[in-house]
């Protein structure tokens, strides 16, 4: 009965999101392709305004060459790829809006976040506002005698001299060739992740306090909402797939992974501060989660599990080494698929919503009649995806753990 429901869930997941992921892949390629174009185009523009822009950049402390790149030329062309890639990528600040003041100068409003760098001279911390919203390497932040620049969200040591485009770096096809300090800043994603951690601790801490205060009574309020979810993870994910003997050990891990992914997904759907970060659509985050799943699975592997990996019983001896290779590769492809699935689905969702909204800016305000309902529809769908992807990630992790701790009877 339950195997069936698991199969059904997987089928739905693959049908629905396989296509989404596939779409995303091609879209991603397009994006990358045009992104390079964008960069080059930008470089070109920098070159053009390098002469006069540079002088101004130094003159006005508040001015930011990056955002002015288009604005200063008067003809502002909306670049969808750039906007979308900027939104789904990590950032050192929470960008809220840009506005042009009476003098025709463009300003950006954003929430600065702490920058933490491990440099050649030790730990350096400062607020990202030191870059003055610049992400093109035009503004040098001087901290403790060290000079840093921010190019497309990455922090480099600034060069002694400006390059031809006005950036303080040595340019290689538009990309900086400068050395980078180790960047462990509280970026937009890290901030959101910490927020999620705090929220989870508050929500479930208070749920736990409810039981501490009232004893093991029927839940009310927050507890009555959270308890079924917790019990769902315990019974329908952990117990079902790991089995009655071993499951209890893994429930806390599975609960944490489920709610962490889910809440991060949900916060990503909020279009403004403190949401909008694409945490679970970042490959680094999904990679770490997948690595944890991999470690928990394989560190708990029983004798039977390793036997099935390296010397599969019940198969002709000649086939066993071949199967061992396949199974060994399978150990890594499973968490790899976990990593990619979550990353692709969440990123695809963000790209979809942003693309639909971009229609209005690319074409005309009239298109909002189409774009707004469509965005609404996709957003509601994304609410489902947020829960579903958290469920699938947790379910598959539980399945892998279940296979690792299972004891076969031959």
């Amino acid at each position, binding site marked *: 009965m339950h195997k069936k429901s698991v199969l059904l869930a997987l089928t739905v997941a693959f049908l629905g999101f396989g296509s989404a992921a596939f779409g995303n892949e091609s879209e991603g390629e397009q994006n990358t392709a045009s992104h390079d174009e964008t960069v080059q185009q930008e470089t070109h523009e920098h070159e053009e305004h390098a002469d006069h822009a540079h002088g101004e950049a130094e003159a006005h402390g508040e001015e930011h060459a990056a955002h002015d790149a288009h604005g200063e030329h008067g003809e502002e062309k909306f670049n969808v790829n750039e906007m979308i890639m900027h939104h789904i990528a990590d950032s050192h600040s929470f960008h809220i809006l840009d506005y042009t003041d009476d003098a025709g100068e463009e300003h950006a409003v954003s929430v600065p976040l702490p920058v933490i760098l491990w440099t050649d001279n030790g730990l350096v911390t400062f607020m990202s506002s030191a870059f003055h919203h610049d992400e093109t390497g035009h503004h040098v932040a001087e901290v403790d005698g060290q000079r840093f620049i921010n190019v497309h969200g990455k922090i480099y040591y600034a060069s002694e001299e400006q390059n031809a485009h006005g950036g303080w770096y040595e340019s290689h096809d538009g990309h900086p060739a400068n050395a980078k300090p180790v960047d462990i800043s509280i970026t937009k994603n890290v901030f959101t992740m910490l927020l999620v951690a705090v929220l989870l601790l508050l929500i479930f801490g208070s749920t736990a306090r409810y039981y501490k205060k009232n004893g093991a009574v029927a839940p009310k309020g927050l507890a009555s909402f959270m308890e079924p979810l917790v019990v769902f993870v315990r019974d329908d994910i952990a117990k079902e797939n790991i089995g009655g003997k071993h499951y209890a050990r893994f429930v*806390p891990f599975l609960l944490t992974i489920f709610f962490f992914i889910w809440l991060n997904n949900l916060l990503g759907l909020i279009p403004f501060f403190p949401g909008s970060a694409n945490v679970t659509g970042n*490959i680094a*985050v999904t990679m770490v989660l997948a690595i944890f799943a991999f470690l928990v699975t394989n560190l708990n592997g029983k004798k039977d599990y390793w036997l099935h990996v390296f010397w599969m019983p019940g198969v002709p001896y000649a086939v066993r080494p071949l199967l061992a290779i396949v199974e060994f590769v399978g150990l890594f492809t499973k968490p790899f698929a976990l990593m990619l699935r979550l990353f692709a689905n969440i990123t695809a969702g963000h790209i979809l919503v942003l693309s639909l909204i971009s229609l209005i800016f690319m074409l005309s305000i009239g298109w909002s009649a189409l774009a707004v309902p469509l965005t609404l529809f996709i957003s509601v769908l994304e609410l489902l995806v947020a829960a579903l992807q958290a469920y699938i990630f947790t379910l598959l992790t539980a399945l892998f753990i279940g296979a690792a701790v299972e004891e076969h009877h031959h």
Partner: protein
Amino acid sequence: MDLVTPGFGLIFWTTLVFLILVFLLTKFAWKPILSAVKTREAAIEDALKSAERAREELKNLQSDNEKIMREAREERDAMLKEARAMKDKTIAEAKDAASAEANKIMESAKEQIENEKLAAITELKNQVASLSIEMAEKVLRAELKDQKAQTEMVERLVDDVKLN
């Protein structure tokens, strides 16, 4: 390719945040919540079981009651039957005894009557015999008053003897 290149900072923070989160949530949330849920589930199960047990007991009690009632009824019936039988028996015995006694009395009465009758008959016989003798004496005396009659008589007697 930035999109699919994991950044070190985020790897570092995700690992740190996730590990801390697993630790803190396990300690302060999952353990208390799960144990409370488990306790309650056990309590509910216990309550259900004891309710079931109580129902079972009640059912047993009811069937016990019924059994006792049935037994009592059976016992009563048996006692009634026994009493009736005893009554019948007593009556029959009494009847038998009475009739036996009556028979005995009748028998002895008959016997007595027979005896009385025999005695009466015997006495009557005796009386008749003595009367007859008396009468015969009187008749004989009357007939044998002259000599001639006596002689004839003797001759007749002698003739009778010859004839025999």
